Structure formats: structure tokens, C-alpha cells
């Protein structure tokens, strides 16, 4: 046995390795079932899925990729949070310094931005896919409604994040949003003072959008995602075949 093989075996036999990977590489049906069943991340899935459901051309992975983008946005967003203060006096310069001075700051911000647009886009596409497959029909009505909430949360996440750089683009885009909200009959003033924190975009708005963006909306979205995924299994897996 060569040296490398011995090292390889020693690693695989060590208690640490075996606590991490409780089963050897799954090659037979039984161990493949365990690979899914014994792993909290993979256990979103059942051990077996219907054949047509794994066809790429059925889901186009749109829901899955929306979720993946959500994860990417969480990771990049947490990194950006370390360098950003939601104050009208420092927000903009924080963004400048993220781009110029922070290690991987520019690429992190870029990925966060493009990922966010892409997520909104993919959630739309996912909704189209679900509609054209008639996958909102019984027993999946409830999951469709959960999905519509997810769409609204995704848009709200994107919209609240849009203000945070506190540059001209974000300021005026949110101002337009605020104006639109002001046309709502009866509840316009409560909406404005509750969500925007005043009749014009300012420090209150920035802080509220920040808290919504980094805390409230991601938490609610995560909860709805959990229900969404759980429902898929309760409804008997992916719909179809057409």
C-alpha cells in the first residue's frame, strides 16, 4: 500500500471522519436511501422521487434555483452587513468603502445585487411554470397561496434592499414607491408612517427598510419556505406528468 493510500485509509477510519460521514459512499440502493434519510439537508427530499419529477425540462430547477439564490443572498448579505451602517450620513460612504477597501467587497456587493434581481426574475418564472403545468390545482391550492406570499416577500426584500446604498437611484426609486403608496385610499397615511416612517424618504425610512431587509423579511420568508417545501411532499411530490 502506498503512503497516500495509507493516509487515505487513516482519514476514513478516524472517528472524526466517521462521525461526519456515517455511511460509506452510497453505491447500492440501501446506502443511497440512507444518504438522503440520514442527512438533514438532503432530507428535504424523499428517498425516492417519481421519474418524471427529476426531468430538468419539467421544473427547469426554477424553484430550486430561487431557493439557492435566497441562500447566496443570505451569505453575501451577512458579509455586507459587517461593513454597513444604516444611517443617511454613512450609508453611502460605507458602500463606497465596501467597494474600495473591503476584501472581496466589490464582488460580494455585485453578486448580492445581481443575485437579487435574478431571484425576483426566477420566482416569476417559477410561478409561470407552476401555472402552465396546472400545478396549483387540488391538492396544491394551499401551496400556490404560500407561493404568492413568497413572491410578495421576494419583491419586498428586493425593494427594501434597493434603498440601502442611499444613492440617487435608490432614493428616487423608493420615492416613487412612496408616492404610489400614497394613492391608496384610507390606509395611505398609516402605510406611509408605518413602513416609510414619514411622508418623505429619510433616516426613518432607511432604518425601517434596513430592519425589514435584514431581519423581518428574511425570517418570514424562511418560515414560508419551510412550509412551501413541506407542502410539496404532503401534496404527493411534484405534480405531473402532464
Amino acid at each position, binding site marked *: 500500500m502506498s503512503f497516500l493510500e495509507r493516509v487515505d485509509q487513516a482519514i476514513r477510519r478516524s472517528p472524526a471522519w466517521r462521525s461526519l460521514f456515517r455511511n460509506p459512499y452510497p453505491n447500492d*440502493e440501501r446506502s*443511497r*436511501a440512507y444518504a*438522503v434519510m440520514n442527512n438533514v439537508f*438532503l432530507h428535504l*427530499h424523499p428517498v*425516492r*422521487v*417519481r*421519474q*418524471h419529477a*427529476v426531468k*430538468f425540462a419539467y421544473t427547469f*430547477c426554477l424553484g*430550486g*434555483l430561487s431557493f*439557492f439564490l435566497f441562500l447566496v443572498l443570505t451569505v453575501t448579505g451577512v458579509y455586507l452587513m459587517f461593513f454597513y451602517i444604516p444611517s443617511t450620513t454613512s450609508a453611502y460612504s460605507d*458602500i463606497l468603502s465596501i*467597494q474600495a477597501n473591503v476584501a472581496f467587497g466589490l*464582488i460580494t456587493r*455585485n*453578486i448580492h*445585487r*445581481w443575485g437579487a*434581481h*435574478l431571484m425576483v426574475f426566477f420566482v*416569476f418564472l417559477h*410561478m409561470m411554470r407552476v*401555472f402552465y*403545468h*396546472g*400545478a*396549483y*390545482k387540488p391538492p396544491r*391550492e394551499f401551496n*400556490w*397561496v404560500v407561493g*404568492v406570499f413568497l*413572491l410578495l416577500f421576494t419583491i419586498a426584500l*428586493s*425593494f427594501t434592499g*434597493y434603498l440601502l*446604498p*442611499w*444613492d*440617487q*437611484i435608490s*432614493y*428616487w*426609486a423608493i420615492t*416613487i*414607491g412612496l408616492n*404610489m*403608496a400614497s394613492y*391608496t*385610499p384610507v390606509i395611505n397615511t398609516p402605510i406611509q408612517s408605518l413602513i416609510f416612517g414619514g411622508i*418623505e*424618504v429619510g433616516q426613518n425610512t432607511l432604518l425601517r427598510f434596513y430592519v425589514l431587509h435584514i431581519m423581518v423579511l428574511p425570517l418570514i420568508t424562511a418560515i414560508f419556505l419551510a412550509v412551501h417545501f413541506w407542502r410539496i411532499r404532503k401534496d404527493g411530490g411534484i*405534480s405531473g406528468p*402532464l
Partner: protein
Amino acid sequence: MTDQKTEKESRVVLPVDPTRRTEIDKQRVPMSARPYRLLAMVKQDAVVRVQKEPDDTVMTWPHLLSIEFLAATVMSIFLLLMGLFINAPLEELANGNLTPPVAKAPWYLLGLQELLAYFHPVISGVLVPFLYILGGAFVLPFIDRANPEAKKPSERKTTVLLFSLFCILGLMVTFVGVFFRGPGYSIVTPLLPFFDNFTSGLHFAL
């Protein structure tokens, strides 16, 4: 449920020739002989199994997960390249006293902003989004109760037509808002020099 139960209990279990006892026969024990209670009943398979349903399932690992991992990898590479080569927009510091020539909502709300140019704000800012979100999305599965088995678009033409119409209208106003509105939210034709209202660039930020 109750009907089934009484029926089952009152049924006389005939002795079956031991050599001909099937799996199902072995499970047929008189109620009184069971050391446990009946808590729930599950539909039993037909006594005569004509044909087992074909098993159309595959193992999640590797068949599904490998596709998911691949999709995630492709997406990661795409995002990395985007992040490396295209910078996120950033303009000057926000200034409430200086309206920029082009002030637009984010693209997913631009359809609404476009409607503001045509209709009374209550219609475009409130009624239409309300209709889309509530009518087009939330209650769709409760309106379309025609035939739950009809999944193919060709089997539910009305719904598909209406929904597509909603989508196309939304896409159209969004498209106009994104590409054909320039400084002061005036109608422009970008990049096509032979139009009167030609502008040399695109007027939206992502």
C-alpha cells in the same frame, strides 16, 4: 369508516387451506383474537391483485440531487462571472432636492409606474396591483375549479388564455417603462437614430 368496521367484525372468517394461504389471508385474524386495539383503518389492497402499479420512482441520490448540485454549480459560476465583470450600479449620494432626469422604480414595479402615465393613480397604483395580486394570484386556484384533472394547457384553454393575457399586459407595460421612457419619463426610442425621439443610451438602472 364505521360501516366498514362493523362489516368486517361480523364477517365469518372461513378456514383456508393452509397451503393456499396468501399474505392477505395470514393477516385475517378475528377481531377478538387481537391483543391490540383498532385505532385507524387503512384502505386494504384489493384481495385479488390484478397487477401491481408500475414503480415509476428513482432514487433521489443520485438522480435528483446530482441535477440540483449541477444547477447550483452552474448558477454559482454565472454569479461569480457577473460579479467579476459587471459592477452593481451606484450613483451620487442621495439628494432630495435634485430630481435626476430619469427617476424610475425598480423594474418589477415599473409596469405600475408606466400605468401612472395613463390612468388615475387610484387605478394604476391601487386597483390594478390589487387585482393582479388578489385576483390573478391568490384566488386563482379557487376560481379555476373546472376540472382538477385537466393539467395540460390545451385542456384548460380559458384559464391559460386569461392568465397569459394578464402576463402579456404586465410584460408590455413593464417593457415600455424599462426601455421606452427617458428623461422626465417622456417616451423615447433608444438606440434607433432614425426616430425623432431617439436617445443614445438605455435609461434604467438595475
